[in-house]
């Protein structure tokens, strides 16, 4: 009996060891490129092209960041990204929360089909809408403008927000609304006085998620903008890469600048998002 106990315990310890090693490998796999970005971004020019490469430079410097902030389009790109993502997230919240609310509360064959259609629209490739939207936006005289890009980004953000909001509204018991309706509120008052206050954190989180998706988007932004006036951060990032020579120090510093707001916003909103994301409210 005793020997069995010892055997069991050693198996358990071995298992813990094995699991920990595998998890450590996954964490290294995830962090390796990220640390490499940060490491390169604080290297002086001479260390960036060093053979063999080093993790920590002899003299860490913020010179790459200084160059990116003073001698590139990144500050302007940053501002553009802020505006585009803000506009698209705001419009998506306004339309998406209303549609999501209706779909959550009124369930018929038709509305179910609409829900499924909205979910499906997220799976269409950006590349499909590239040229048609280019034509439409040019026709509306919005080519190379922040508003034009923000409107096209609704293709990504609106279905996302709608589907996430629908999830939140479904989790709010309907009894509350019925009571208010009987007390003489109309449906719009029910929404603004009861539903919105309760679900505000969830709606805000889905708005932040929409903001992030627009912030990160490359394909549409690359075709619908052509000058610094309206180019966003992901496009600005490619400006350090010439055909044969890439300014890696600046590219990595700019990568950090693009990623930091996204990481902060995502972890802030994360707990409201997980269940919606698990149900497929995602754009790859």
């Amino acid at each position: 009996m005793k020997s069995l106990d010892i055997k069991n315990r050693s198996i358990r310890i071995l298992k813990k060891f094995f699991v920990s090693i595998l998890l450590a490998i996954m964490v290294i796999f995830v962090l390796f490129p990220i640390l490499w970005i940060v490491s390169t971004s604080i290297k002086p020019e001479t260390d960036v092209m060093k053979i063999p490469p080093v993790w920590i430079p002899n003299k860490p410097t913020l010179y790459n960041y200084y160059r990116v902030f003073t001698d590139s389009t990144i500050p302007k790109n940053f501002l553009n990204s802020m505006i585009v993502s803000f506009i698209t997230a705001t419009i998506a919240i306004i339309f998406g929360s209303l549609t999501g609310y209706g779909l959550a509360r009124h369930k018929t064959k038709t509305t179910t089909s609409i829900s499924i259609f909205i979910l499906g629209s997220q799976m269409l490739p950006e590349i499909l809408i590239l040229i048609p939207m280019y034509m439409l936006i040019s026709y509306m005289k919005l080519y190379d403008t922040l508003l034009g890009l923000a409107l096209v980004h609704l293709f990504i953000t609106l279905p996302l927000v709608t589907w996430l909001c629908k999830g939140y509204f479904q989790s709010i018991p309907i009894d509350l609304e019925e009571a208010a309706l009987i007390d003489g509120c109309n449906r719009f008052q029910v929404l603004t006085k009861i539903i919105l206050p309760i679900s505000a954190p969830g709606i805000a989180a889905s708005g932040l998620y929409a903001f992030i998706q627009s912030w990160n988007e490359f394909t549409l932004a690359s075709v619908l903008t052509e000058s610094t006036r309206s180019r966003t951060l992901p496009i600005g990032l490619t400006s350090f890469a010439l055909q044969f020579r890439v300014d890696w120090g600046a590219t990595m510093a700019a990568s950090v600048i693009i990623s930091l707001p996204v990481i902060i916003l995502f972890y802030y909103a994360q707990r409201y998002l997980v269940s919606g994301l698990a149900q497929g409210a995602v754009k790859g």
Partner: protein
Amino acid sequence: MKLNLQRIKTKNTKKSGYYSFILPGTLLIALMVFYPLFFTLYTSFSSEGSEINFTFENYYKVITAGNFLTLFKNTIRWVISCVSAAFILGFGTAILIEQEFIKQKEILRSVLLLPWILSGVVRAYAWRWLLSTDFGMLNHMLIELNIMKDPLSWLLNTDLAFISVVIVQVWGMFPYVMLITSAGMQSINSEYREVSLIEGASYLRYIYSIVIPLIKDVIFIALLLTTIWSINTFLPIWIVTQGGPAGSTTVLALDVYNKFLMYDLNKASATSIIQLSISMIFVVLYLNNTRKEKTY
């Protein structure tokens, strides 16, 4: 009085009123889906210039072009590699994290989720730089660890280049699989595990006979979504290898983008429709599965 209440209630809760909430957003989405769809279909069936004539010429040219077979094979290889690797890593990591003795579950999950929330452009540049033959940290680390002797030309050799872009895509995609399978595993009642322990089942047996059947919908979603994403993705490839060397990493989606950049709109549209038709198979499977679930 009772009658009166009933009347107020019916007046206010007439369900069709909800359509005024639903329609604006829905119409906006419908516009953004159907206008591009018809536009692309139309362009794919017209010949160069804008003369209106219905022709299969573009599809014929695209399919009979010398590189189409390679393109098609690359796409299949790309999708299968990306999806299976992302699934094994994602579900595997979820199983590891859900072990009872792992303490900082939340922190681990947040760290492992990082690649997924970064912009695709950032991901791609980071890996392109990491994979650099002389200056890249990956070669250096592999040599330091005595795994190999000489640096590998990751992006210049056709097979290695293919593996490289798959790694970039999987790095960005596996955290999503981890996220949803991990959420699925948390919803499983812990009694199942206890009972299976008492019955003497091994952990692998528990995963295989209890966990997988219980979260099979989640697994289905993960597999279908990663498949659809992989079919539609071209950005990491475009930045890391530009489809080379010698076209070895060019997939359908990248080919569409290249044709658009060369203003070859008719053929680009035809290729785009072919790509869309393939991904629609998986989209329909996915939507059907969602429709069946009660929770949508």
